[in-house]
């Protein structure tokens, strides 16, 4: 057993209101620079939809993720001996137009325009060429199902549905959507790391954050292709790739990352997970329908004395273990089985988990028409507007069972709380609903509390993995590492000639 610590995340999709505050917080802190304007390390997309970059989930186009084909795991973009031949031109490299061309407006025209009969306008100007452009796409072009015949209808996940289901999904009376906020998953088996020819991308041993060393990156762009979530970005100005750094300078000082901290819906949870690094290959190699379970399996119980002993041997200290015991992520993912990895079939073992949304599922329909006059309070999840196959395709590699369990459990908890607070539920029905998902009343209460009433400290349990402390724990000579940790550049990040 090789126990390691991972800073992991849970996003509770039922709570996301799609306000994009998280994206803006991140943009303001990290990517408001030349060459990075188009990057959204945090983005929020509408599902069904094609997302950002357009149709990123379609790996027949983008070639991201791992493939097993029954044998040794291999990058989908091809074996590396052949891949080096693509160094002069990467055939599977996404282009700027797959994202969008960043633009601003010529605001000064509003002030300088001569007096006339028409209102002056601020024309859009490309931030690459500084020339006027005709805006064709943006980072969030299909927000709230806008342009759904073009965007939502082309969502690659709709493949999981029958033609009838698809058609129903876009019936105007039944339209349904939810939000999917995305950041880098800080994967255990990251494709970006595996694809980087320069060895510039690495996982930090102590906390599992995946970073790109800006000085070693040579702009070979393989990571951009390899990451199935399209969360490494090529900075077209500096000629280096960049990605989400999980705000590690904030984490190191005990603060939640900017997107977490600013989240209006309070949907985000962050905490430590202990996992067994010896089981990574095993967990990434199982058939699709077992991926969710295999990934859960390799997450270790921080209360288990054997795990604790092994963790201590690996240099993980007591205080970190304590934090892991309180980790909301551990609860959602392992204990309660409510949170699921996004597209486990990419096999990168992502460390960001999602609680699938119940809200669109709960809505009722009567002969295709939304109906709120039913006697039953909530219609059963099987009659959902959003077919479960769709959610399964997103959150459990096509296996409906884990998604169904997560939804049924949330459903049962609603009934339970309804019974407690309003008192118009039949206790027997509630009992049965809870029993069906193997959830005790105490657990239901806990889930309810952490879902609906969590404080900041409940949501973010940041282990004391801060580098300063880690360094003091490890090195006798503290000053030896002075000036070496943290975000920043030893030299100005100017483009080479």
């Amino acid at each position, binding site marked *: 057993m090789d126990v390691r610590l991972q800073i992991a995340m849970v996003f509770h999709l039922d709570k996301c209101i799609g306000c994009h505050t998280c994206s803006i917080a991140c943009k303001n802190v990290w990517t408001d620079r030349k060459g990075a304007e188009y990057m959204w390390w945090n983005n929020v997309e509408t599902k069904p939809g094609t997302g950002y970059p357009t149709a990123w989930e379609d790996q027949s186009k983008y070639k991201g993720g791992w493939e097993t084909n029954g044998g040794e795991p291999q990058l989908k973009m091809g074996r590396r001996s052949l891949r080096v031949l693509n160094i*002069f*031109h990467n055939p599977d490299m996404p282009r700027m137009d797959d994202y969008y061309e960043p633009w601003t407006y010529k605001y000064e025209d509003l002030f300088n325009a001569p007096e006339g009969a028409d209102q002056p306008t601020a024309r859009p100007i490309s931030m*690459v060429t500084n020339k006027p452009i005709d805006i064709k796409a943006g980072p969030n072009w299909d927000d709230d199902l806008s342009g759904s015949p073009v965007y939502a209808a082309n969502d690659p996940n709709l493949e999981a549905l029958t033609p009838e289901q698809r058609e129903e999904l876009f019936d105007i009376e039944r339209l349904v959507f939810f939000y999917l906020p995305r950041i880098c998953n800080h994967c255990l088996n990251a494709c970006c790391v595996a694809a980087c020819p320069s060895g510039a991308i690495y996982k930090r041993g102590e906390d599992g954050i995946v970073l790109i060393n800006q*000085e070693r990156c040579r702009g070979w762009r393989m990571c951009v292709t390899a990451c199935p979530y399209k969360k490494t970005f090529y900075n077209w100005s500096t000629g280096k790739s960049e990605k989400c750094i999980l705000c590690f300078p904030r984490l190191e000082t005990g603060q939640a990352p900017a997107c977490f901290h600013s989240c209006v819906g309070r949907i985000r949870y962050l905490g430590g997970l202990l996992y067994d690094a010896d089981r990574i290959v095993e967990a990434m190699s199982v058939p699709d329908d077992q991926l969710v379970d295999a990934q859960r399996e390799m997450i270790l119980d921080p209360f288990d004395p054997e795990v604790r002993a092994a963790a201590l*041997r690996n240099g993980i200290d007591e205080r970190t273990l304590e934090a892991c015991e309180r980790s909301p992520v551990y609860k959602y993912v392992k204990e309660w089985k409510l949170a699921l990895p996004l597209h486990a079939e990419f096999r990168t073992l992502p460390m960001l988990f999602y609680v699938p949304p119940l809200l669109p599922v709960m809505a009722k329909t009567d002969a295709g028409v939304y109906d709120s006059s039913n006697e039953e309070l909530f219609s059963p999840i099987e009659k959902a507007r959003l077919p479960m196959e769709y959610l399964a395709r997103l959150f459990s590699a096509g296996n409906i069972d884990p998604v169904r369990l997560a939804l049924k459990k949330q459903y049962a908890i609603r009934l339970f709380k309804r019974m407690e607070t309003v008192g118009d539920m039949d206790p027997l029905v509630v009992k049965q609903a809870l029993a069906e998902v193997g959830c005790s009343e105490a657990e239901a209460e806990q889930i309810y509390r952490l879902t609906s009433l969590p404080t900041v400290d409940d949501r973010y349990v940041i282990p004391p993995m801060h580098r300063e402390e*880690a360094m003091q724990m490890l090195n006798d000579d503290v000053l030896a590492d002075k000036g070496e940790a943290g975000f920043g550049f030893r030299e100005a990040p100017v483009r080479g000639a």
Partner: protein
Amino acid sequence: MLDNLFYIILPYAAVTLAIVITVQRYLKRGFTYSSLSSQFLESDELFYGSVPWHIGILVVLLGHVIGFAIPRQVLWFNGVPARLYILETTGLLFGLLALVGIVSLIVRRFTSARIRAVTSWMDVVVLLVLLVQVILGVYTALFYRWGSSWYATSAVPYLRSLFTLQPDLKMIAPLPMAVKAHILNAFIFLAIFPFSRLVHMLVVPIHYLWRPYQLVIWNGDRRKIIGQAPRPRPKTVEATVPVTGDTVAASRPVVTG
């Protein structure tokens, strides 16, 4: 006089610049070492420029290096006419490939608005020097036949004399203008090399072929922690995710972004 300047002083100055600045830049401004790829901004035309260019020029360059390293063997090889023709045709073909590539790259650089936005003066200089070099090379191959042989008997002795610090211009003095210009331009290329994006050829990531897929970097000295552990570890080197191979050791934190 001019010959001394062009073929003795310039070469030494160029080589010194190339070595000193390249190393200094690597150590002090390592960030600027990048392919500076513009594929993200424009991909289709790049294919018809970058691929023929790189393949063509690499083969031609390799030919020059072989001729320099083992001139006698090349002469012996060329002793049989059929072999000489094959060698020369191959060289010419790859030279033409490089020419097609560089011309496409130049056209692309000046016709695409996005690419112009990321074009520096040095890029223009580099493209011009390379264009001139390839044109002179192809011209020589076409009009001064059997260069693979006379390169071994005239240019190589001169280049070697530079190496041994006893520059001797005798062998190249009678060479035609085009060839002499080709040599001169090569030294100009060397001189601009460290100031341009050309340095990316020094950081070609060959080690990717054998390194483990996953890379984990520990902040402290991992070996020390593991060393203190009561249970001996099978490997003393630090640990990674064993996806296919295993294990890379690195203990220093790195500046990142």
